[in-house]
């Protein structure tokens, strides 16, 4: 009985170790590609992106990436920001230029209701955040006196999305004030929530 179970477990773990060895690289590559795509989607064309960095904002740590133009000047930041939505955290990549303008946003993950909150991934909603200047457009849903049109029947999601963007803008300001804050953590990827 013991021998039998041991053998099965041994064979199974050997098999898994083998497959893991083969797939570890593509899995890591896919995760990196996903992050890079997200950075590229939220910022104008850039020359080079930094490693993952982290910044402390209101007692929590947030991950971000700096991007540089050809001369090596910082062009903007891609910030991972999250806010509690209806079905869990709405996690975004927000591109903020050095002058504080939101260039674009991209949903990294969410668990909102299909057909309602999940519409936050559709252009009708998230195009509102393209090249948005927080000094002229109030980052809040209209119901709360802001300038963002909420998704019909999904105010909580719209609110979470908007708050996450507003938070990213504030984080960008923090990063700019204290440049080289806490340095580089090696790029470990995964859908790490910055909750």
């Amino acid at each position: 009985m013991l021998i039998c179970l041991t053998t099965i477990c041994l064979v199974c773990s050997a098999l898994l170790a083998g497959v893991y060895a083969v797939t570890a690289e593509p899995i890591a590559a896919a995760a990196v590609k996903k992050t890079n795509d997200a950075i590229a989607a939220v910022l104008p064309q850039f020359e080079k992106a930094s490693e993952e960095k982290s910044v402390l904002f209101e007692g929590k740590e947030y991950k971000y990436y700096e991007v540089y133009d050809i001369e090596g000047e910082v062009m903007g930041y891609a910030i991972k920001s999250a806010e509690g939505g209806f079905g869990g955290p709405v996690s975004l990549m927000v591109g903020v230029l050095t002058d504080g303008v939101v260039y674009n946003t991209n949903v990294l993950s969410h668990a909102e209701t299909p057909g309602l909150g999940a519409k936050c991934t559709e252009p009708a909603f998230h195009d509102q955040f393209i090249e948005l200047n927080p000094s002229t457009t109030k980052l809040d849903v209209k119901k709360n006196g802001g300038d963002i049109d909420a998704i019909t029947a999904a105010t909580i999601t719209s609110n979470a999305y908007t708050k996450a963007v507003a938070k990213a803008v504030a984080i960008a300001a923090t990063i700019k004030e204290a440049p080289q804050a806490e340095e580089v953590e090696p790029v470990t990827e995964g859908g790490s929530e910055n909750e």
Partner: protein
Amino acid sequence: MSKLKYTVNGILKDNPTFVLLLGMCPTLATTSSAINGMSMGLATLFVLVLSNIAISAVAKFIPDKVRIPSYIVIIATFVTLLQFLMQAFLPSIYETLGLFIPLIVVNCIVLGRAEAFANKHTVLESACDGIGIGLGFTIALTVLGLVRELLGNLSAFGWKPVEGDGILVFILAPGAFLVLGYLIVLFKKLTGNN
């Protein structure tokens, strides 16, 4: 030829979703669209065929007392394997189904077939049974997903010919129950399987 019987049985007479009513958790949860339903079905098919083959091959060496733990270890191995492969090569599908892939381990269809079929039949028969049950599950999930997507979002496999919103409730959890109920009725009617 006679082996083919097991495959057909799995799709019609023993259809896991419409007749055996097994594996309801992934059935209801992943069928919010036809693509998701089909992917979940195919993932289960993959695990089912491999676990049926492996279990039928080693069943006679496993003492009765430890057969369930052994089956679970074997099934979990294939599921983890599938998870690695999907993560590496189909990351977008993995993202939608991610949560439900590990749950295949405890999907009663897989363990049910191991216990009810694979440990009493030859490797070839078990493989045919795995394909049949797996296809039956895939077809059921695809149809369920398709109906829900059509009614709830006016689209099929992501193709949306008309603008507008569907009847939202069909994409939400209660819609899954409603559609499943009607599909079971329809299936029984069509197969004369009362």
